[in-house]
Each structure stands twice: as structure tokens, then as C-alpha cells.
């Protein structure tokens, strides 16, 4: 299950998508809208996506994980539109036979989402708003392309 949705995410449904008779561990990550960032109070967020490409890129992340962890099952749902404080923006579920892999694969998924899925977040405060990007340029892209799968 790899989806960009406009409605609230049903976490249970994402988890159900990775249930497996040979899974001993399911790790989920829920990215939620936080009120305070660097002491500044967020009123709400707005997410926008290049939907068709974002969908493909979520599928690609799933494929990358399957290549590293052949027994893993992965589901990722990202919500767009207006989100209020505590709303879930993204839910990632990964099941694997053993827990270390589930944590690692899940963490890999969220880092990849941030670096190569075309989704943007606009923070709204009382005194303004801003599209949040990689302002600190902590992600570097070689030749304009997000790095391909880690080997």
C-alpha cells in the first residue's frame, strides 16, 4: 500500500497491510504535526504533492526496502492538504521476521521520503507562513539527482 491521500490516515489499515504470518515485528512511524518548532508556534500545516510522481517514489522506496530486506512488507501513506496540530502527515509500517530489520527499514523509509518524494510542507504561524525546504542544505544531491538506492 503506497498512497497519497487527502483524508485523515487510518493507522490500523496501514498496519493491517503489512501483517504477515512470518513477521515477528511490525514497526510503524507516524509523523505528526507538532505545535512548537524552535520555540515558534505553528497554527497548522499545508502539504502539497506532485501526486503521480510522489506515489511512484513511495513505491520505489518500498522496492528499495524489499531489496535490502527480502522478507519485509512495507506500507506508506502520506496525507496532503491542511493538517492540524497532532494530525498524522505520514504513516509508515514495516513488518519483518526479526525486529532489528523492521526498525532499520522503517527509519530508512522516512529518511528517503524526506530526500526524494516530491511533497512540500508550508508552516503557518500567527505572523506569517513559509514553505519549508532544506533551508540548511543538509541534503546534497549529486548531479541534481537524489542518490539511488543505498548499496
Amino acid at each position, binding site marked *: 500500500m503506497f498512497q497519497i491521500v487527502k483524508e485523515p490516515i487510518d493507522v490500523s489499515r496501514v498496519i493491517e497491510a503489512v501483517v504477515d504470518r512470518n513477521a515477528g515485528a511490525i514497526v510503524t512511524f507516524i*509523523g505528526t504535526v507538532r505545535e512548537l518548532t524552535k520555540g515558534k508556534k505553528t497554527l497548522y500545516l499545508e*502539504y*502539497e*504533492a*506532485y501526486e*503521480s*510522481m*510522489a506515489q*511512484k517514489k513511495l513505491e520505489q522506496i518500498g522496492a528499495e526496502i524489499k531489496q535490502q530486506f527480502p522478507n519485509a512488507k512495507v506500507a506508506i501513506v*502520506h496525507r496532503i492538504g491542511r493538517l492540524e496540530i497532532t494530525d498524522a*502527515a*505520514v504513516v509508515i509500517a514495516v513488518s519483518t521476521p526479526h525486529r532489528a530489520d523492521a526498525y532499520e527499514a522503517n527509519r530508512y523509509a*522516512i529518511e528517503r*521520503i*524526506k*530526500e*526524494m*518524494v*516530491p*511533497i*512540500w*510542507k*508550508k508552516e503557518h504561524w500567527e505572523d506569517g507562513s513559509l*514553505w*519549508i*525546504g*532544506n*533551508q540548511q*542544505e543538509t*541534503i546534497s*544531491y549529486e*548531479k*541534481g*539527482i*537524489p542518490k539511488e538506492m543505498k548499496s
Partner: protein
Amino acid sequence: MIRILFFAQLKEQLNKKEMTLPYQEITVKQLRERLEKEYSLPALSSVLFAINEEFAAEDDIIRDGDVVALIPPMSGG
């Protein structure tokens, strides 16, 4: 013809979601420069380009009919 898509801050600054350019053989790098010069777009140094929903390198050539998306720094998750 090349279709060009804008998102997030670029969409807001230009006040449009997309535009089209008559086709001429051009690389991503050349398109970037042309957009900066001729269409008064802000500096695009931190913007990635996608051709037909795949990230493109600076020297990739854009073909007639391609859909090019300008991808400002992403912030999903």
C-alpha cells in the same frame, strides 16, 4: 512542446501551476538558465528537475512532449 509544472513556493511566486514552451532540443541545465533569465524565475540553484516523473541530471536532454517538473527542496514526512 514542453510542459513545465510548478509546485509549492514556485507555484505561488509565479501564480501558476504550469506553462508550456515551444519545443527545441535543450538540456536540463539550459532550461534552468533559460527559465531564470527569460521568465524572471527566482534562482533555481536549489531546485531539482524531473522529466516525466523521474529526477533528471543537468545534462539530460528534454524531448518534445516531455513533462518537466521543477522540484523545490522537498519537505515531506
